[in-house]
């Protein structure tokens, strides 16, 4: 069974139909890149799956859990939150918590969640120590171990984004989503983020990446989707989409990035 299944997803904002029926699946360990021009609906797909927007119709399933089904109308905030833990999202603008240092940014949500564990009262110290240890391992992985007690305002954009990746990873999501993770960065800083994502791909972390970095998408993805005007114009392996695009629109889009 696919770890991510999206069927006929539709979403409008007012009179603008942003998603006009999008379907795709993703297997565990795969990396999917979603490319396409601005306004084609890439980010909206991510926001719908991550429950930041509610789709109008369609079906979303993550790791065997129904995330959205037009037949199901009302549900409790608790159910929604339980599902939320299965997915992780890295934002374009990081959205770190400014008043917490790097370590606390990474551990905050995990610590709050741990309070709900039955054995929390008895093993409080141990649980917190474990979370902090885990955070340090992740921060080491993204190369920020020496910045552990710095505040976000003291970091560069690239460092901030690496913290936010560690912050998403600590919750151990089944699928990790990236919403244009390098678009808010100076060009010389994108490399460090792409390197981290590549590292994750090598560890078989299931990821969906909305990006404008074409050569990166080609190198890291097992699957590529080209979005155009709210529909999937073309999808396939990176070789198929980048080297032998069938659709004229895909050809036109990709040629813009070749110099």
């Amino acid at each position, binding site marked *: 069974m696919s770890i991510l299944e999206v069927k006929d997803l539709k979403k409008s904002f007012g009179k603008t139909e942003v998603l006009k029926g999008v379907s795709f699946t993703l297997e565990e360990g795969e990396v999917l890149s979603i490319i396409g021009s601005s306004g084609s609906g890439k980010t909206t797909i991510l926001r719908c799956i*991550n*429950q*930041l927007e509610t789709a109008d119709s369609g079906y979303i399933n993550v790791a065997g859990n129904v995330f959205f089904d037009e037949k199901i109308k009302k549900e409790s*905030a608790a159910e929604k*939150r339980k599902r*939320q*833990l299965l*997915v*992780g*999202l890295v*934002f374009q*603008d990081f*959205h*770190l*918590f*400014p*008043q917490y240092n790097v370590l606390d940014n990474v551990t*905050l*949500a995990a610590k*709050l*969640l741990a309070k709900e564990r039955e054995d929390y009262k008895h093993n409080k110290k141990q649980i917190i120590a474990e979370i902090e240890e885990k955070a340090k391992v992740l921060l080491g992985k993204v190369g920020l171990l020496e910045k552990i007690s710095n*505040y*976000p*305002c003291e970091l560069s954009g690239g460092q901030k984004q690496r913290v*936010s990746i560690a*912050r*998403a990873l600590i*919750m151990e999501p089944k699928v990790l989503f990236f919403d244009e993770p390098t678009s808010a960065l100076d060009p010389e800083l994108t490399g460090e983020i792409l390197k981290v994502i590549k590292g994750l791909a090598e560890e078989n972390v299931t990821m969906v990446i909305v990006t404008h970095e074409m050569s990166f998408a080609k190198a890291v993805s097992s699957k590529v989707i080209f979005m155009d005007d709210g529909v999937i114009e073309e999808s396939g392996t990176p070789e198929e989409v980048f080297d032998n695009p069938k659709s004229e629109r895909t050809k036109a889009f990709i040629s813009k990035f070749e110099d």
Partner: protein
Amino acid sequence: MFEREILETVIPRLADGFVVTLEIFFLTLLISLPAGLLLSFGSMSKFKPLKYVVKTLVAVIRGTPLVLQLIVIFYGPGLLATWAQGIEISNFFIEWMSSWHVMDRFVAVIVSFSLNYACYFSEIYRGGIESISKGQYEACQVLGMTKTQAFFKVVLMQVVKRILPPMSNEIITLVKDTSLARVISIYELIWAGEVFIKLNGLLWPLLATGIFYLAFNGLLTVIFGKIEKKLDYYKT
């Protein structure tokens, strides 16, 4: 003019008045700081009737003088009771209203000051809460935090940092506004000083009250400055 005996009578009287001033100040803060937060939630509520009731209340309170509110809250219930007697309404209502009429003056002061300041604070809170970017809430949500956790663990601290300057301004105004209580015969600091004009023809005790206000506000300014500095370790 500054004879010892006079000094010995003036200072304790001013001190008495100052104690009442402080009582009004602290009780008002104690009630209006949390009440303002509730009002701000009301004014941001998705439940429209609540939102508009709160917004109207805030508009009326902010749009009329505190002195007038003080007088209405102190005399209003009694006047209503008198009017109710005229139109033969139930005895229970009249008794209830009359009980308000003999309401303690001090209670009337605390009620009107708390209401007034809660409304001002609620607008400051609202501005602060609405200035926090949507991204902060979204980041909390995707990390699996509840809305309550997001507000208290992430948003609130940022709001506090943002609203501290306007809040300190408002709180310093409250110190001086306590002097308005005298319109319903509360013996506060200004009254305590003024007494000596009528009694002994002395003006300086009234002028001396200024020193109390100045000293107390000076202290508050230092405290707020310290808190602001403490929150200066990060930037948003």
